């Protein structure tokens, strides 16, 4: 199997925009020279507020296996209460990291000793001029900080492109602020 594939699983609630966030990261990764970028949402019977997830695979080479991620390198969670749902952190590699929108500090989350980074994206987004509950742009800042995978500037550019008619500057600012306020824990 291809070991050079970076596997990121995104968990959110229906309507939070986890798929859009993953799509923005996919676009940024492709621009950075990752030719293999595949984002596969796992579809159930979607309802607003219900848990949803999407798999993002990133590789230097074309990706042929579209099956869902079972052993992610990273798990991004748009709502910290989802950490209490069964299965959300399942399969995370031993050196993997959880990136979560949470008002709490990393140490305050019980995640079986796994590495975790937190940022209060919900509050930061309001500070950046977005209305309450818009967290899918901000979480990308936390992802950038915790993963170190893609340069923040490219992500900010892709955020502005995606939200070109929906407060592009405020969405980018939310990600930029979150980047600087992400708590990497220990």
């Amino acid at each position, binding site marked *: *199997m*291809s070991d050079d594939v970076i596997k990121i699983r995104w968990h959110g609630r229906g309507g939070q925009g986890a798929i859009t966030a993953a*799509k923005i990261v*996919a*676009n940024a990764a*492709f621009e950075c020279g990752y*030719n293999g*970028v*595949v*984002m*596969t*949402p796992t*579809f159930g019977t979607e309802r607003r507020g219900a848990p949803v997830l999407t798999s993002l695979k990133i590789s230097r080479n074309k*990706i*042929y*296996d*579209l*099956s*869902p991620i*079972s052993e992610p390198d990273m798990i991004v969670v748009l709502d910290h209460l989802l950490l209490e749902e069964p299965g959300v952190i399942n399969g995370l590699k031993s050196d993997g990291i959880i990136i979560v929108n949470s008002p709490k500090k990393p140490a305050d989350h019980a995640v079986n000793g796994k590495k975790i980074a937190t940022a209060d994206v919900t509050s930061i987004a309001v500070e950046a001029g977005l209305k309450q509950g818009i967290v899918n742009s901000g979480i990308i800042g936390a992802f950038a900080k915790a993963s170190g995978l893609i340069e923040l500037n490219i992500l900010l550019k892709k955020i502005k492109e995606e939200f070109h008619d929906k407060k592009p500057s405020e969405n980018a600012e939310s990600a930029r602020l979150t980047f600087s306020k992400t708590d990497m824990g220990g």
Partner: protein
Amino acid sequence: MHIIESGNVAAATGVKLARTEVIAAYPITPQTPLTEKLSELVDSGKMKAEYIPVESEHSALAVCIAASSAGSRAFTATSANGLLYMSEQIHWAAGARLPIVMCVVNRGIGAPWTVWNDHQDAISQRDAGWIQLYACDHQQIIDTVIQAFHIAETVRIPVMVCYDGYLLSHTYMPFEIPEQDAVDAFLPKFSPSYFLDPKNPANLNTVTLPDIRPDVRGNMAPGYMEIRNNLHTDMRKTISVVEEMDRKYQKTVGRGGNPLIEKYRCEDADFIAVCLGSLSYQLRDVVDTLRGEGIKTGVAGIRLYRPFPDKTVAAEFVNAKGLIVFEKALSYGNQGALYSDIKSALYRNDNRPFVHNYILGLGGREIKTPDLLHAFRISCTDFRKIGDDPQWIGLKL
């Protein structure tokens, strides 16, 4: 230009680049975003086409049949039960020799209801007289949609472009959008030699009798059986037309190759997996792993399923020891449709490999790569254990 978008958007972009003139479709999961995108493109004026909303899939294809009979380039798309609801018109479009293109976004058929992927919908329509092409990724979806119009209009036979629901339709990946100029150089304007025209009244597809009879000018006209023989003969010729169109597409757009069967590491392979759609790409990693274990494997994705490239199958797999057919559909009470087709094609060879049949992924049951690896490995190393009955992968009860 490369973009990262869903498979449905790739299909819609191909339909736009092909300068389709009439679109009629009824939404059904997982096809819906494709028709939504097309209606957006037409509504915003980015695409000059007539988008005709209808109350059912049967009407969607009926509109396309009318539009195509009147000489317009027509497109529709559907999935699963929507395709079945069209079925009467599907046979009609083929018999009437109308070069309609339809995307079938493959989904399992109810009952019980499922919105997820398998291939039973398209397979159930394989004998209707439509050409069936299968795409494995978004690049193939957009390129195949464009090519499908040229193929259809060259042989006057409608084409289904099939791609996996959700796995491709809702997955995002990069693909290149061809330049409009290149597509225009590839695909000539649709100008049929005959079409419904008020200035030149004609009856099309009038009733036939069991025997032939003279037409209005007194010339002996083909009867039902001759007309059906023509369809079959032209279907067989379509195999070389598909190859020819692929060569033309390579020249004008700069991409293509493997229009009938797309092979991966098959040259010296003892054991070759055969399947339709994106599964053939998932199996590439499995092939690499088995090669690492010293088992010479390969995988072949059938791109053109109808007409079936039987002679190519017989020639390509002449040296294989075993073929392992992985299928997301079956003929209930018998075996997988592709399995039967492969065995039938090999019958002409003196040395025939063993052929195994695995049924998997029905109704979107997750196809786990380790499960594929396990089944493929057993077929290669312990092949006498597997009989002629289809083996099911992924059953949990």
